[in-house]
């Protein structure tokens, strides 16, 4: 069953890749060195990336509101 929440990346992302390293589902990748990208299919909404992000660029949101 899919989690209710999932990670969303904002414009503040500096593409440092810290979130990639902590994601237990390997759901994040860095898109062309520009920003992080979350694979919503893989994300389980654990929030580890949100805690790690130095730029405060990740928020957990309700899956139905996620783009």
């Amino acid at each position, binding site marked *: 069953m899919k989690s209710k929440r999932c990670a969303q990346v904002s414009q503040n992302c*500096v*593409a*440092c890749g810290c979130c990639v390293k902590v994601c237990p589902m390997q759901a994040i990748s860095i898109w062309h*060195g520009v920003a992080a990208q979350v694979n919503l299919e893989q994300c389980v909404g654990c929030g580890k990336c949100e805690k790690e992000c*130095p*730029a*405060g660029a990740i928020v957990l949101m309700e899956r139905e509101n996620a783009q």
Partner: protein
Amino acid sequence: MKQKKHWYDFLWIVTPIYLGLGFFNIMFAWLGMIFFSVPLVIAIFGGGKLYCNRYCDRGQFLSLLGTKLKLSRNRPTPRWMVSPIFRYGFLIFFFAMFFQMLFTTYLVGAGAQSLKEFVTLFWTFRLPWHWAYHGTALPTWMAQFAFGFYSLMLTSTLIGILVMLIFKPRSWCVFCPMGTMTQLISKIKVGKMKKNETQARYSCECSCNKTP
């Protein structure tokens, strides 16, 4: 799921080795040019921020101190520090300092100034570093560059450690000039890529109405 360790996960060791070597012989500071050129070359050739994401010793070193050794307070990085104004402002400031350092090197090389045998911390405080320079057969401008470059590397590492202690382990990466520059290069490259794609879509000259 624990991720497998690779050889590049141990590159953090380069930071203390580099700073340590400069302590004994300032000419080792020249090795730092690798940290300047490799990320840019990777980004220019389309590798994005692979250097930050995989190979950066400083990023790993800060993670080690902040996360593994739990030295970071782990508080959110202030919003102003994340703002583009601060990030690009710091990049410009850093460049200005870098070019000032190059100018001093030029003056020493041209004989207009004598060699300044000290390391400057935070662009202000002079650390006498005489014993790191024993005089070499190399030209004095090379030594001057080494002192200037080492000052820059040491200062930026200390700023990184300071923000690591106060905020998140990798808060430095938010405004690190190399990180900002490589992201900027990547953004420009993606912009160009999109432009080329759009142009290709409209350049099909036959009347088939298909996108090439």
